[in-house]
């Protein structure tokens, strides 16, 4: 199947300035990753904060240009940001941000902001836009009187619905959801997630779902990539990964999911310092926190290697671990 969007060996390096004239320290936010999204399906991206998952989302949207590698949408390389071509492409690629209040203009009504993409891209005449607005409100479950209010007058869940309606206004082919529910109450999280998956199924939208919450990712994703310090360490079918994670980091994450009843995996608590992307350890980036690290892990960086079950794992000891858990 031809992917809708693909990232091929993409890296993004920020220069951290030390002092005003200081030499920049390169910070590899995203380091040589390859991912793809098929039409109508969802790719989940998990990892702790600072692992580069948000940067991956911004690269996928074309909001940033990779320093190496390439991002292609429908087979064509992304145009450079802020050109006319880039602007008109925005209607196909939309973002659902983490903080809906920050993403909304507090001086305009929610309805005006949901309809704004239609104005920007010159879609429909006045009457058609009004019909479209009503349909969008209905889709996300907002009443017209709620939409006539200003952002701060709505609840967190309502704001998230409004932001979602705005992202859906131009009927995009791909939606990047960056921690879309992490700011919401757990009870509301489920509602928004269900609405998101329903709309996705009904409209055949592809999605990149970025989250640190593994349960949510498992619920929505058709494929999952686990990231650590700008790299993908394990990637594959969500059920396989969550049932039997191979990479020690993925194991630690999965073991931290609260489950009712006795645990199948022992709880693994990560030791050592949280990762700093500006000071990347040599060899396998995870080795300082890995209880299974060997001399090889400290010097040689493991590649992302495909396994028999279709999963890909970047760990020198993956074979041993697979045998042990089988």
């Amino acid at each position, binding site marked *: 199947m031809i992917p809708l969007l693909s990232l091929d060996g993409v890296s993004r390096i920020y220069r951290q300035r030390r002092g005003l004239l200081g030499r920049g320290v390169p910070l590899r936010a995203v380091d040589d990753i390859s991912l793809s999204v098929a039409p109508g399906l969802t790719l989940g991206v998990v990892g702790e904060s600072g692992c580069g998952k948000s940067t991956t989302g911004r690269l996928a949207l074309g*909001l940033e240009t990779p320093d190496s590698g390439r991002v292609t949408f429908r087979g064509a390389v992304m145009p450079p940001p*802020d050109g006319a071509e880039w602007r008109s492409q925005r209607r196909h690629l939309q973002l659902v941000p983490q*903080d809906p209040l920050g993403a*909304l203009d*507090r*001086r*305009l009504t929610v309805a005006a902001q949901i309809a*704004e993409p239609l104005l*920007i891209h010159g879609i429909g005449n006045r009457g058609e836009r009004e019909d479209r607005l009503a349909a969008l409100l209905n889709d996300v479950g907002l009443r017209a009187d709620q939409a006539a209010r200003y952002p701060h007058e709505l609840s967190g869940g309502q704001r998230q619905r409004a932001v979602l309606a705005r992202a859906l206004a131009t009927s995009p082919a791909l939606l990047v959801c960056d921690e879309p529910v992490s700011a919401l109450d757990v009870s509301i999280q489920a509602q928004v997630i269900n609405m998101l998956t329903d709309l996705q199924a009904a409209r055949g939208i592809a999605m990149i779902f970025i989250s640190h919450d593994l349960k949510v990712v498992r619920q929505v994703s058709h494929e999952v990539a686990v990231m650590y310090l700008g790299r993908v360490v394990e990637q594959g079918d969500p059920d396989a990964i969550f049932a039997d994670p191979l990479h020690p980091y993925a194991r630690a994450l999965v073991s931290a999911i609260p489950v009712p009843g006795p645990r199948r995996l022992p709880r693994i608590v990560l030791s050592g310092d949280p990762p700093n992307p500006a000071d990347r350890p040599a060899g396998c980036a995870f080795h300082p926190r890995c209880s299974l690290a060997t001399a090889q892990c400290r010097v040689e960086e493991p590649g992302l290697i495909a396994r028999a079950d279709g999963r890909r794992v970047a760990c020198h000891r993956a074979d041993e671990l697979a045998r042990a858990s089988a």
Partner: protein
Amino acid sequence: MSGTVLPARAGRSAPPALVIAALVWITMILLIAVFADQLRPFGITALDLKARLLPPLGFGGTAQHLLGTDELGRDVLSRLIVSIRISLVIAFGATAIAAVLGTTLGFLAAHFRGWVEQVVLMLIDFQASMPFLILALAVLAFFGNSLPLFVTLMGLYGWERHARIARGLAIAANAQGYAAAIRQLGARPSRIYLRHVLPNIAATLIVAATLSFPEVVLLESGLSFLGLGVQPPMTSLGNMVGYGREYLTRAPWILLAPSAVIVLTTLCVSLLGDWLRDRLDPTLS
């Protein structure tokens, strides 16, 4: 950064008495400026040679010339009314020019970053580190004086304050939040800045304008006092003070009336500006 975070409906506690008094004075001055032609009893160049250097009513003067007359028998009240209009028009025009210029440059710096921003920042530094009066005098020396040039020149005063604010808030809005979201929707920069960023920072910019307005009044009156601003036969508040200075010993009223208006107006606008700033945006200095 919190400058954009304005309460949509600020609490309705009444302003202090001093601010109300300031508002009353400002309103009065504005009405006088608008209806100057209807209010003035005489023309500003109308001579009454029989009534020269007449003191104001209550100091030996007559009801015909409430604030007295000058050396040529011109009515001080009439000249004062017209001076108020001219000084206010210049100050409003100049403040508006500075606000538009500064905001535009600030937005350009925030949008393009890189060398455009460096150039704008350098100009801001330059403007802030040179006494404006000296620059203005230099321009007037080289170009001579005309009213449009004078207003334009005054319009260069205080732009850096608007530029700093507009740049800072636009960068904050671009980095996270609504402006970034609108860009991501595919909007052109004109839409982002004019329809979204500008309304969000307008309150802060208006406060800044309120703070620089009295400074422009002082600058204009200072230059006019030195004889380098508004030229006769036109008259402005500073111009009247400069003229009245010649008659300080014989007819101090010529000078005192416009001086009082200058002081009261700058005082009232400053009070209002300080109050607005405390209410709307305590981060602004």
